[in-house]
């Protein structure tokens, strides 16, 4: 058999499971009254983020996340929506990354970031039950106990305990990113999921600040088996604040990287009409990797950028 035929034949069980996971995820959200939506992949503006570089397409961009359009639907009264969509992030290639990948995003009104984490817990519970995997799964030679609730860890406490400094009091973006990637995340226990919550306000991105504690943002991330699986926010619904954050990010991107990114005006128009809501983005390949005991994104993707 030619090399490609052999490679693809070896992926068959994983690709079948990938399809099952997609079916079950859709079943999960439909069963809870969510509407599946589709938003454009090629867009005139994206959320400006210094560490996410978009692929350009004739002056527009291939979307890095469906977030902005889904929030425009939310602002128009679509109160529970989900989508599985292809996203593109330039240069992201490694064991856990392919520049084209799939995000499952869902949003619901009258919810916050921890409600989105509860949804994620319920989704994983449903998936492992339907796939007859039990609540303790095997991943890369380890047992992971997925029983609920998953442990919650405060970002500030995790930093104080592991690296001995307080990122909420003294935020330093480079040091924060570096310590998160090299100390905090590798140090998380493998045998349980971990929900990191309450990020320093400057790392809020599109999350609202915590009512009563403006030093932290209502942002949470879940890690399972060393995989960064999903990122949730209590969504920022303050138009002036969102505009100010984007303008600062656009200015920083141009100053530090020389990239010019436009302000996503249509999204900004909608922000003020958004209800209080929670939103989350989950990496589908990471989820499938976890449920296939796959070490690499290459084992759950038929055609990565390297064999396209």
């Amino acid at each position, binding site marked *: 058999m030619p090399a490609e035929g052999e490679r693809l034949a070896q992926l068959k069980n994983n690709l079948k499971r990938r399809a099952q996971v997609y079916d079950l995820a859709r079943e999960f959200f439909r069963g809870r009254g969510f509407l599946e939506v589709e938003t454009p992949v090629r867009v005139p503006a994206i959320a400006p*983020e210094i*560490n*996410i570089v978009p692929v350009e397409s004739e002056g527009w961009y291939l979307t890095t996340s469906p977030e902005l359009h889904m929030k425009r639907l939310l602002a128009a009264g679509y109160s529970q929506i989900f989508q599985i969509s292809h996203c593109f992030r330039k*240069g*992201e*290639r*490694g*064991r*856990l*990354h392919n520049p084209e990948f799939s995000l499952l995003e869902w949003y619901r009104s009258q919810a916050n970031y921890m409600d989105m984490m509860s949804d994620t817990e319920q989704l994983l519970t449903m998936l492992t039950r339907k796939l007859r995997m039990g609540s303790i799964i095997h991943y890369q030679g380890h047992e992971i106990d997925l029983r609920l609730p998953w442990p919650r860890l405060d970002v500030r406490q995790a930093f104080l305990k592991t690296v001995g400094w307080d990122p909420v009091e003294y935020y330093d*973006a*480079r040091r*924060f*990113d*570096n310590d*998160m*990637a*090299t100390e905090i*995340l590798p140090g998380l226990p493998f045998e349980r999921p971990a929900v990191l919550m309450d990020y320093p306000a400057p*790392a809020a*991105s599109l999350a609202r600040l915590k009512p009563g504690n403006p030093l932290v943002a209502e942002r949470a*991330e879940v890690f399972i088996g060393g995989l*960064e699986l999903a*990122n949730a926010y209590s969504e920022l619904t303050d138009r002036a604040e969102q505009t100010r954050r984007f303008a600062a990010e656009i200015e920083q991107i141009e100053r*530090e*990287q020389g990239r010019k990114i436009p302000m996503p005006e249509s999204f900004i128009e909608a922000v003020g009409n958004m209800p209080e809501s929670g939103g989350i*983005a989950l*990496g589908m390949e990471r989820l499938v990797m976890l449920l296939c005991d796959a070490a690499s994104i290459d084992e759950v993707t038929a055609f990565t950028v390297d064999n396209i």
Partner: protein
Amino acid sequence: MEIEEVHKNTKLLYQGKPWNVDNAEFVKPGKGRAIYRLRLKNLLDASTLDITFHSGDKVEEASITNQEMQYLYKEGDHYIFMNTANFEQTFITEAQLGEKINFLKEGTLVTMQLLDERPIDITIPTFVELSVVETGTAIKTATVTAQTKSARLETGYTIDVPAFIKEGDVLKIDTRTGSYVERLSTKK
């Protein structure tokens, strides 16, 4: 070049030395800055170095080319080679060659690695033929085990050879282990 363009087996110049990227690991939190963990192998002495770069960092690519060269002669601690394609001469130092000098005799064809135009190393044939310039007689013992003695070869290299080897014999030498393989011809 941008750190983003570095892959396994990219050749880099780092701290003035040429390296091969033996392994490249990409680590990136979704919202965070990308980290590139590289394992580098020194192209001159094979020592390794683990180093971390971040997105936005720039590194210098080393362009390594291979060229067939013929060893001509030694001058001081310079070993003079001739490019078989254009007949231009260049040299590489005794320190760069290390133990390979033991197997270099005039006229040997080798593959030379060049960093830009600068010779950095040579790859010698796995087997070379060298003649014996000096050897004594084996000390006779009562045992029947194979007897060996030392012999000095035309390159100045001294190895253990079987007792029957004589001055003027041409030997096949394995350059990977530096050891005697067989006698190819003997002086009548």
